[in-house]
């Protein structure tokens, strides 16, 4: 059964997001001269200084520009961390948080004994993807990241995770599900 996968996030034991990937096509941004505007603002102290009204107009489109991917990763980590602790408290220490669902997406969670955390966002109707995350860990993470002699032990800033074999394998695996 094909399933629409939206994104995957991997967090290390220091709670840092060391890998994230989106599969859905983002809606095309509204056509505007944003990069050009920014360029002007960067060296905007010259004689071509805009009037106050114009400056406001320039800043308006800049306002929603934020690093959405990084923000989402932090929000997702906060969510799964809180839910995991909640589940442990209520269900005992051997209980494990598996997934949650809203009307728009479903988040699947998998945690290894070394506190490496995988979060996969799919369409809400998807069945359990725990085995998928387990496969990603065994067949891709261990094979291409852990066994890579050039990869560092800690993946600060995603270093060592973004290697070609892992990325290609992951993309192929996830696209095979869709």
């Amino acid at each position, binding site marked *: 059964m094909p399933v*629409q996968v*939206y*994104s995957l996030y991997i967090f290390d034991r220091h709670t840092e997001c060391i890998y994230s990937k*989106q599969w*859905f096509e983002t*809606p095309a941004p509204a056509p505007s001269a944003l990069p050009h505007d920014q360029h002007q603002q960067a060296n905007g102290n010259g004689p071509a200084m805009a009037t106050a009204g114009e400056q406001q107009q320039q800043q308006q489109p800049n306002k929603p520009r934020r690093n959405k991917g990084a923000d*989402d990763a932090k*929000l*997702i980590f*906060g*969510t799964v961390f*809180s*839910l995991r*602790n*909640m*589940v442990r*408290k*209520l*269900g*005992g220490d*051997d*209980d*494990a*948080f*598996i*997934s*949650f*669902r*809203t*009307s*728009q*997406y479903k988040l699947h969670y998998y945690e290894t004994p070394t506190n490496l955390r995988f979060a996969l*966002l799919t*369409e809400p109707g998807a069945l359990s993807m725990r085995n998928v995350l387990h496969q990603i860990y065994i067949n891709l993470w261990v094979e291409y990241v852990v066994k890579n002699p050039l990869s560092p032990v800690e993946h600060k800033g995603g270093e060592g995770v973004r290697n070609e074999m892992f990325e290609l394998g992951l993309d192929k695996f996830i696209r095979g599900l869709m």
Partner: protein
Amino acid sequence: MYYAQVRPQSVLETGCGETSDAHCPAQQLNSSIQLEADISTQNPVEQILGILALIVINKAGGLIYNRTFGDGLNQLNTNDYLVLAGTFHGVHAITTRLNPGHQPQQITAGGIPSRPDPPSGLEVMESENFRLQCFNTLTGTKFLLFTDTLQANVDVAMRKIYDLYADFVTKNPFYQLEMPIRCDTFDRKLNSYIREVNNAR
């Protein structure tokens, strides 16, 4: 797996209708969250499966009601329940904001694209030992129903519990909105309904 255990049906029949007054006395309505001793835990039942607990959170994230049915979940102290309610309230708000992908435009019969549903927060959470169903009312009150992983028709149970809340809590003239729920009638009706559901399995 322990889900396969069968409960003795007859034990659950005892201990019903032990509460007294039909109306909630006014002096019970102080704002302290210290909820009284659990009626259901007095039942001598080893393992109740089915519906395990109910928590109601007001729109500000405060705990206004909690009951456990049986010992499927760890017993927490009142403070932990308060923390849990607050945490869940925050998590719910975050999950509403996280919106991957974009919704397909729903076209109605007339060819006019209808307005998409507003994003909902967490609806169902699953763990290895239990399942949590969350119902968010239009006014922001959240009902959290903890069941075991195999319980079916949780939506129906949730609907019924919401009906009981509407009938016996909000229509109670002594109940102040957003305050802890201390209504004997609600307790009684809830207990008998949950017992019915848990017995039916």
